[in-house]
């Protein structure tokens, strides 16, 4: 198991050092500094073995977090724990920076004592931790016996992510379907690889211990219902609205720990008691029938040895009523570029020498439109034999729909003990599609 945990600043000075196991000595702190932080080379592996001691590290801005062990630990667990540690710290005091860590070092020690016992990760849900570890010192003495046992049962209980007795005047929930489309396209317009990785983020402000059921247009579920002949009326109370594809094939999905996985496995229904506030309900990945919001058509022509002509056309490929935002096209230029003239029909384009690229920005663009940019690039003659590698043209954008075609069909809330029903809950759904790595080779 984890033998110790150290936090360093960018210079390699220790800010936090907590040792859990006897086999980790003080010299381990220095070993990591010397061999990894101060190493001349770029990091070649997130796991380093120095003198039979293994160091796992992650870096957040300028801060290094390192877990140390001498045993054959579960490596995936150690990294998951380090990420979790970062989440917990962020939830407590915001950005992970040297200053924040120094300002909160007592708190961090307290957290480390609680979420890692003898190197074994314990309950690390911020919701639960915040009930008894607070920045204002511990409430310890002020609590009644009931409160204490409520805390302990939450920390150890089956529903460690939610406490009892939450009350809201208005029961409300927000669902965000956030997707990022990834594309790699050949110059001829052939899709080399494309996938959508999506997340369903939920903000819940619900009283009591509500039982929720979430439904989407998952192909497997829809097909099953179709076969049964009885199309569930849940399908009609369509939250998302809109038409488009009936159902989508989800390659794989993972869920927050509140979701009952065995039920999903057997019935493919997503049921859970949600944590309070914001959290990520699920992640999913699709590769089939993706709506690619934009098509990039590049044309690069070399005119002699000192000139390049570039023409790029982008076409938006979605309903004309929708608007895409924050569109940015990045056209790489050779290292020996001496000057660039750009003409674009829409938006603004600029040659940025420091980034070796022409950056073309368009604020808004409706569906089924097309726009074009052309540029003349002057090159300095070089005797460098190595050819210019022609990096791909990349794109950024944001669209108000889910490129995977995912639709939320329903989210039902049941709370038997309290006096509110599914209809009383105000529900909001929003779809945002963003570009992930959206590249077209030229």
């Amino acid at each position: 198991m984890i033998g110790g945990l150290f936090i360093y600043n960018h210079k390699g000075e220790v800010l936090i050092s907590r040792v859990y196991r006897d086999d980790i000595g003080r010299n381990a702190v220095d070993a990591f500094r010397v061999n990894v932080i101060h190493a001349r080379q770029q990091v070649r592996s997130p796991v380093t073995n120095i003198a039979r001691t293994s160091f796992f590290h992650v870096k957040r801005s300028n801060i290094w977090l390192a877990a140390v062990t001498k045993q054959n630990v579960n490596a995936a667990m150690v990294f998951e724990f380090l990420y979790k540690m970062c989440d917990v710290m962020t939830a407590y005091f915001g950005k992970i920076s040297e200053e924040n860590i120094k300002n909160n070092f007592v708190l961090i020690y307290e957290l480390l004592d609680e979420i890692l016992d003898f190197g074994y990760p314990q309950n690390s849900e911020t919701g639960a931790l915040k009930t008894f570890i607070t920045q204002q010192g511990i409430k310890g003495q002020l609590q009644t016996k009931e409160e204490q046992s409520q805390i302990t049962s939450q920390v150890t209980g089956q529903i460690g992510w939610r406490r009892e007795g939450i009350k809201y005047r208005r029961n409300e929930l927000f669902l965000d379907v956030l997707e990022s489309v990834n594309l790699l396209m050949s110059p001829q317009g052939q899709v080399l690889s494309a996938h959508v990785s999506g997340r369903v983020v939920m903000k819940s402000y619900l009283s009591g211990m509500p039982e929720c059921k979430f439904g989407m247009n998952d192909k497997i579920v829809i097909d099953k219902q179709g076969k049964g002949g009885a199309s569930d009326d849940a399908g009609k109370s369509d939250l998302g609205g809109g038409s488009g594809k009936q159902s989508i094939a989800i390659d794989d999905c993972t869920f927050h720990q509140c979701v009952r996985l065995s039920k999903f496995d057997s019935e493919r229904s997503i049921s859970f008691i949600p944590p309070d506030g914001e959290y990520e309900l699920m992640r999913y990945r699709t590769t089939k029938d993706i709506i690619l919001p934009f098509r990039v058509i590049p044309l690069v022509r070399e005119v002699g040895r000192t000139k390049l002509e570039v023409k790029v056309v982008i076409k938006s490929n979605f309903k004309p009523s929708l608007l895409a935002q924050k569109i940015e096209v990045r056209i790489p230029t050779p290292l020996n570029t001496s000057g660039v003239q750009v003409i674009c029909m829409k938006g603004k384009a600029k040659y940025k020498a420091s980034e070796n690229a022409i950056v073309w920005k368009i604020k808004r663009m409706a569906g089924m439109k097309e726009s074009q940019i052309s540029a003349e690039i002057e090159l300095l003659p070089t005797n460098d034999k190595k050819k210019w590698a022609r990096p791909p043209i990349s794109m950024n954008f944001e669209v108000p729909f889910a490129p995977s075609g995912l639709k939320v069909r329903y989210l039902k809330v049941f709370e038997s003990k309290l006096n509110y029903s599914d209809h009383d809950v105000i529900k909001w759904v929003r779809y945002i599609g963003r570009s992930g790595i959206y590249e077209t080779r030229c």
Partner: protein
Amino acid sequence: MYCFTEVLYHGKNHLISCNSAEKIMFSQHNPLFSVDGSLSSRSQEFLCIFLCACTSIICCSSDCHCVTFFLNLHQHSFYYFFYCLQENRQFGSKMTDSKYFTTTKKGEIFELKAELNSDKKEKKKEAVKKVIASMTVGKDVSALFPDVVNCMQTDNLELKKLVYLYLMNYAKSQPDMAIMAVNTFVKDCEDPNPLIRALAVRTMGCIRVDKITEYLCEPLRKCLKDEDPYVRKTAAVCVAKLHDINAQLVEDQGFLDTLKDLISDSNPMVVANAVAALSEIAESHPNSNLMDLNPQTMNKLLTALNECTEWGQIFILDCLANYTPRDDRESQSICERVTPRLSHANSAVVLSAVKVLMKFMEMLPKDLDYYGTLLKKLAPPLVTLLSAEPELQYVALRNINLIVQRRPEILKHEMKVFYVKYNDPIYVKLEKLDIMIRLASQANIAQVLAELKEYATEVDVDFVRKAVRAIGRCAIKVEQSAERCVSTLLDLIQTKVNYVVQEAIVVIKDIFRKYPNKYESVIATLCENLDSLDEPEARAAMIWIVGEYAERIDNADELLESFLEGFHDESTQVQLQLLTAIVKLFLKKPTETQELVQQVLSLATQDSDNPDLRDRGYIYWRLLSTDPVAAKEVVLAEKPLISEETDLIEPTLLEELICHIGTLASVYHKPPSAFVEGNHGVQHKGLPGSAGSAESESPDAVSAGAATEAPAAVIPSQGDLLGDLLNLDLTPPATTGPLPHSGGMQMGAMDLLGGGLDSLLGGDLGGSPAMGAGFGAPPAAMPPAFSAPVSGSLYDLFDLDNGVGMPLGSFCPPKTVWLPAMKAKGLEISGTFVRHAGVIQMEMTITNKAMSVMTGFAIQFNRNSFGLAPAGPIQVPSPLSPNQNIEVSLPLNTVGPVMKMEPLNNLQVAFKNNIDVFYFSCQYPISVLFAEDGKMERQVFLATWKDIPNENESQFQIKDCHLNSDAASNKLQSINIFTIAERTVDGQDMLYQSMKLTNGIWALAELKVQAGNPNYTVSLKCRAPEVSQCVFQSYEAVLKN
């Protein structure tokens, strides 16, 4: 610009004055503050602001009289620092904890002491915080121990936690003082607040002081049965802590049983922690039946799995993976209950679930529908892991690499997800590339090649090299693609990027080996780049190509001659290659190249001090001078083809690693024993189906095993390129087809040189029989094909000098590799222990696999259970040349310092040479410690047997031993286990035996031998029952030998 500034402030009365543009000085008496004159005026401006900022800080923290700032900053950071300070000033008196990190000075400890003893609670807390901050930075604040402990009795939980933190760090250095804390702990364990009870028991377990652990037992017992689950789950982990400090105590106090009961606890988190604790304890007792996994417990665990936290699920899944299901039906039902975990958001849960499934799948019949379903279910979660953070992607990719080798069918359609992204960190890129090669097949090769070509134009040198190499691997793996690969490689060579060209030439050489006489048209292009090659591997590859195809290259002699000029500056690899290539050339075009060949032979034999080169030179020389026809047959022999698969992990290791999916072992691709000290988790794990005995193995498993074993011949890695005389490229002879042929050739070669070497060494030393013996062994047993016998003969020469021989008659376990060359910069040590005529000898074979000579050998032992120590310094005739090995026998005595080791017969050794000091540990058979006077009187035996309590008796089974009792008795006598009496009851021979260890411990044994039953039973009684296990191992080793 760097500047080094030291600011020292005194008191509250200060004044800043700027004397000149060059210097800023303090008023008062001396220039307390001076700045490098080259500071720009802008930075001085800031400096002033900075000083003002300091002032305000110091003003507002009243107890801080003095501040020293050491700044060694780049100018920008300088600005930034000022900025921060200004920010701080804006907060005014609202001070944050960060101040504790900056305040230091000489009288600090004294001041802290005063503050710790202050009456004011706030001040006390502040002081403790300062102490903790100093502790973090690595300062020794142990002197404050009593003062800090005094703060422990408080109602303030925050203060209490801080004190506990301090205690955990320093209790070990001040054990007597730590006792002071015991009372508070015991009291806290009774506190009505469960959080405090848990805190006390948690902290107490972290204080590794014997005296405290005694006091811990009672509170711990109570806490294990506490009504509050939070306390119970903390107590469960505490048992593991206590076990780590004092295993005996935990057993004596019966905590293990309580812990086992907790597996049935109603609270899932208690169950998870109990499982974690038990698994850890069980690992240090490999033979105990602690983690008694039976169907009932399995059921409980599987139920808890659905309910506990993500971490708990990991503990439980890792524990489940150790279970061996009784039959395929049970196996399937477990798999069914584990599969839902594949959708968990936590990657570690997913990987642990994959481990359980991969392992239990072995038991499922392949024609089962469920088997196919399961295979399909495994792919999506593995792919999803690749969208995690980069560090986890790395862990996932290392594991996928194993999974793909074991079950290629799972991911065969998922090639695209392994395409490298522009922004991936380099470690992810390299791993993806590895998997792409493994998944390459005829179906997807076109895409893969296109991708690889893209990668070859990237920036990172290592990555580009690997991509180029990957193209070559594809050519070798997918025959249909070879032509396209070669043309891609040629394109890359045209780029003239130095390292790309070199890498391409190395792989093209391999392609020539795989498809002889097919792509020779490219040789001309290769030759154009001859001058740009500066790496030994590429030069050697190019020379090989020139030599191999000498008849097609018109100016081959000129090309080779050009290399010859700097012969002595080349690396050994290139020298050997050059020697062979010129001999080949000579055999092909004898008329024009006679001069050249003589030149190279004389360079190799007369001017070189590398024995390999010299030997090879002599062999060629003699071959050419005695029988050129034979020489032609030898040197120009047809070469065996190289195999398809590359860099495969050896099947047994792969099986073990599959059992360790998700753990460090799977990341390093090494068994845990390679990087874990002691025996924590070093037990060898195997897959259930194939690890079992032959009859239980399903036919599928056999075929699967055979399938993975067959292509195990691997293209040699750079390390062992030395060696093969015939330039056969050192294929470890696992490809069975062409092997006998080449083996025959090697033998022929040796016969030719046998006599020659004799005369060369001027010896009637009997070199040829020794070499004959070296060669008689089947080549498979000697992977480093040629170098071994050659140096073996050298060793024989030394051997005669030393007069070391194997003692006849006494038992000697085979040598094992203690220190692999990979870990010790080329030094390899294998060895064993024997006892001969009352003297314990450590027999070692020391091999130099490095490129340079080794000298200055020395050896030392760590303290060990029986006080083994070298009786004298180690005698190694140095220097030890590269690729030479040597036998050394080191007499040992048992008068060294004693410390109990785990396991008992573990010996930690430090071995030194001129390069470095290396550490390894080995285990000696305890039989070397059995004294010659170990025969007990009958009466004494009887009395002693009765006298030793029955708890100390342990029974062992020795299976499959086909000796009769007399033979067994004789064999055992050879390791000083003496038979005292013998009787026969119901056709069973009972042998009563005794042995005595060098430290005076007697062990008594009863050996039951039944005619016709190959299983023996040994009952051992000893006053020190720890040794029984080791003694039994000796029994087994000697009887089975």
